[in-house]
């Protein structure tokens, strides 16, 4: 958990202290597709050793931001700093040794088996004179083990269930053995049980190895359950940033997502739960909505 509330990423933390804990950072980052800006002069620090979830409505620029963090997109302005160096000026291979990235809904050629997919994660560690080594073999086996896909190693991806396939892709990113891992909607198109399966795995990785994980998630309650820090984006800007309890408020949901919702707190973990309200449901009394405090009523209250 982030120990401090950090609404403004550029707040007054001494540079030295911050440098020790932040390896990945966006500075005045502007991102554009074909000249149309999608992300505007954005500042964001990814705290080391945390799980950060980026949330926001469709088209808010969250995937774009993740792509820039992974050096897949060149900034139109500002920069992404990795260990203090601008990431798009570093060689691709060097970045690939430090940051692993899994794009949204990746596709594999038909007939590719899990072991071969995961083995391709070793690409940044290989050169034309140094091909497959025992270290690569060990890394692939670790990745397969960590994701519970060792038994699936010889199966082809097309034979797997959605959750298994996603675990195999994560295993590929893991085999890269980077300390930073960027996942773009890893739970896309999965049913709830498989979403939990994938996010539990992400949490395992984070806890077992101290990896820094940044993920883009759509499900707000799951994001709150699994992330230490939430970054809410709207129209290419950061609307809020902090612990799940700080960020997921009824007011923010209304402002950022245009969503009428009630936020409760899960009894066991205290994580915020978002209960969306249908247009067909009777609106709640006006004062309760406008108050929009962080302290929502406990679960079980009649809506």
């Amino acid at each position, binding site marked *: 958990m982030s120990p401090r509330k950090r609404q403004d990423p550029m707040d007054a933390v001494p540079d030295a202290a911050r440098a020790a804990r932040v390896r990945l950072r966006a500075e005045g980052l502007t991102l554009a597709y074909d000249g149309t800006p999608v992300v505007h002069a954005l500042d964001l620090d990814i705290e080391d050793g945390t799980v950060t979830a980026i949330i926001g409505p469709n088209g808010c620029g969250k995937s774009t931001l993740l792509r820039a963090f992974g050096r897949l997109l060149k900034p139109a302005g500002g920069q992404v700093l990795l260990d203090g160096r601008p990431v798009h000026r570093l060689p691709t291979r060097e970045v690939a040794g430090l940051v692993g990235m899994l794009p949204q809904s990746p596709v594999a050629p*038909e*007939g590719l088996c899990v072991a071969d997919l995961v083995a391709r994660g070793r690409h*940044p560690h290989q050169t034309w004179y140094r091909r497959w080594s025992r270290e690569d073999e060990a890394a692939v086996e670790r990745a397969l083990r960590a994701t519970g896909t060792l038994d699936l190693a010889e199966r082809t991806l097309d034979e797997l269930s959605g959750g298994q396939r996603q675990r195999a892709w994560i295993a590929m990113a893991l085999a890269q053995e980077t300390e930073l891992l960027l996942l773009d909607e890893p739970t896309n198109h999965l049913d709830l049980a498989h979403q939990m399966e994938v996010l539990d795995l992400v949490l395992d990785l984070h806890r077992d190895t101290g*990896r820094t994980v940044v993920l883009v998630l759509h499900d707000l309650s799951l994001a709150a359950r699994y992330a230490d820090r939430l970054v809410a984006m709207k129209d290419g800007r950061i609307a809020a940033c902090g612990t799940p309890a700080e960020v997921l408020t009824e007011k923010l949901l209304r402002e950022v997502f245009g969503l009428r919702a009630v936020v409760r707190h899960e009894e066991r973990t205290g994580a915020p739960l978002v209960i969306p309200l249908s247009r067909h449901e009777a609106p709640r009394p006006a004062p309760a909505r406008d108050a929009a405090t962080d302290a929502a009523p406990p679960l079980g209250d009649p809506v």
Partner: protein
Amino acid sequence: MIEALSAPVPAEAGSPRRQIAPERSRRRWAGLLVLLALVALTLLLSIAFGAKPLSPAQVWHGLWQPAGTEGDIIIRSLRVPRTALALVAGAALGVAGALMQGHTRNPIADPVLLGISAGAGMCVVGSVFLLGITSLYGYVWFGFAGALGASVLVFLVGTAARGGAAPVTLALAGAAAHALFTALTAGMVIFDRQALDTYRFWTVGSVSGRPLELTWQILPFIALGLALAAANAPGLNALSLGEDVARALGVRVGATRAVGMAAITLLTGTAVAACGPIGFVGLVATHVARYFTGPDYRWILVYAGLLGASLTTAADTLGRLVARPGELQVGIMLALIGAPVFIHLVRRRKPVRL
């Protein structure tokens, strides 16, 4: 931090891949041996059989103790050169076909699709039409220049498109280039009988009547093309997971595509220049290779090269036997054998998504 997860993995002697998927690895090596044997077999058959029946003793004599008999001359000046050219060009076309399918993510990619054959054809016809060149040696290098020019053009047009040399833009640029070159070629052969005669023999695709020196001359280009193809295989494997994943894995996408295009250009350019546009080899060899190896370009390229060499050589040999004492050109034979086999393959297995 990452080390916390490093459970010690038992180290074993031998191939480090043995622990995961050992069965497939064994199968791939076994398949490689089978293919090498197949190449050797087709090579022997191609030298042993032809329009004029020769006994094994005569063949042996012609190869090792030539004394200028008719059989010796047939072996040394006809069969050995065409066998060598068929092997080399077939391997080049097989590997190039696999590269083309990989880079365009298009299961029907071949030199025709990328406009390379049409570019070579146009320059061959142009050299006859404009410069009056009629000898094979004269226009071979024009064909090479045409193939080179066409693929550079296609690559540049494909790259200039928004988003860089994406599979679709490459294929579309190739189709456009093909249409343009074919039209220009047609325009020239309509006006010039000499150009038409040269073109209609060239465009069938043949390995006969080429001296052994020609094979030696194209060999360095093909060797360079094969080396580039080998260097391209890991990058192509990563690219087959999508450009974003490839970049995240440290692949320089533009450079990898450029190396791939350079290899394709050298391999098809030389093969097409020397033999004419032999169609179908790259297509069939790559599909058969992928059927056995799965989607791993390090293996697909090797398999496709060996399959291309043996297919071309076998088709050329058959072409000499079916129409004795005349012969059917290798390009015609390949299509005659290749098309039914290919249709059978496609009907039995649904076409793969690349």
